[in-house]
């Protein structure tokens, strides 16, 4: 539910259509940010802009989010102003796919993933968080919307899943068949 494929599901995206950067209240107070404020998050690899939600139930110097809810606009057949593209953000921009070289001159670099499970090892990234100046309340990086893929059906504005199970002739069946 909390991954890419949730965003093309009309039900799941109502449950979680955009993500926030969650951080401890004490850390947020130190940074001078509160709920709904925007911050920059910077690593050795990149920089993003994200919206904050404060909480107490996390380690003071750790920030976290439900990743992969943010989408490039136009992706997954969503409308350009969908929250996934406006407010959602991705940590992927901060994280290198490869580990650094070990300095022994070898060109081979290891994948930045857990050696046992193969799962992306995203839990040990050091970042700098700073308050973002007031401006557009949209996440960054903000890329141009993707063009629709040829042949993809137009998304319905209203979804009436289940009406096909109603008896034929029911007044609640909008799509006559």
């Amino acid at each position, binding site marked *: 539910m909390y991954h890419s494929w949730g965003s*093309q599901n009309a*039900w799941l*995206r109502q*449950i979680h259509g955009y993500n926030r950067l969650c951080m401890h209240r004490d850390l947020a107070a130190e940074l001078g940010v509160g709920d709904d404020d925007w911050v920059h998050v910077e690593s050795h690899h990149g920089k993003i802009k994200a919206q904050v939600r404060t909480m107490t139930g996390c380690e003071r110097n750790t920030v976290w989010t439900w990743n992969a809810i943010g989408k490039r606009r136009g992706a997954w*057949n969503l409308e350009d102003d969908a929250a996934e593209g406006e407010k959602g953000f991705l940590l992927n921009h901060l994280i290198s796919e490869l580990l650094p070289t070990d300095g022994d001159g070898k060109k081979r670099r290891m994948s930045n993933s857990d050696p046992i499970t193969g799962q992306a090892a995203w839990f040990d990234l050091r970042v700098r968080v700073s308050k973002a100046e007031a401006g557009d309340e949209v996440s960054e990086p903000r890329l141009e919307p993707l063009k629709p893929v040829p042949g993809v059906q137009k998304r319905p504005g*209203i*979804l009436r899943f*289940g009406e096909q199970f109603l008896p034929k002739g029911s007044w609640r069946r909008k799509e006559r068949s």
Partner: protein
Amino acid sequence: MTSLPKSTGKKLGLVTDLDICVGCHACAVSCKEWNASGHSAPLTDTNAYGKDPSGVWFNRVHVFETQDGDQSRTVNFPRSCLHCEQPACVTVCPTGASYKREEDGIVLVDAEKCIGCKLCSWACPYGAREYDADDGIMKKCTLCIDRIYNENLEASERKPACVIACPAGARHFGDLGDPASDISRLVERREGYALMPESGYQPVNKYLPPRPRKNQAGDTGTSDHLEAAEDAVDGSAFFKWLDQALSR
């Protein structure tokens, strides 16, 4: 306006354990899936793939944090129709569409009589009513009436979809009018409570409160001296090997 039965034979309802609900929304999604395929269909979604999508859900989960010193916690709070014994949503109904069943106490809406006036959603203090603007009628939790009496299903599946879906076992279904039933004894043992009892609607559904948090090692029954435990298990060689294997 619509009248209520004097009493109901059973008081079928749900009990939700707030101590172990993890907020996964499986109850909400499985509810929507079952009921979108039944006589309430469809549970319409508007702006389905756009900004601010909104749909009909019979079950919604609210997640919030409480601030209470070392008892602070995240609370996941599933909310659906409570099938009240004194449902104002029924007595306010001008057409008889909303009704409470005499045999089991389930509160239902007859779609063929509903005129979509929304009085019931104004009357319900729990926000359990769901207006389908596309159909122009009110819809709500049916306690999966088309499951619990459905003889085409295995007996073990004759429960509301949300109860079956819950991976934590946080949802229970049964007759809350029978003090000897499993569910009534569960409520008694855990000191379950009704929401806003002071309002007088007498909800049948109950909630089990979170248990006090266990913040100290001793609270969980484990030793708070790790070294002592290691000595007792003489597994130091194994752990050394494991540590080396994982550190390579």
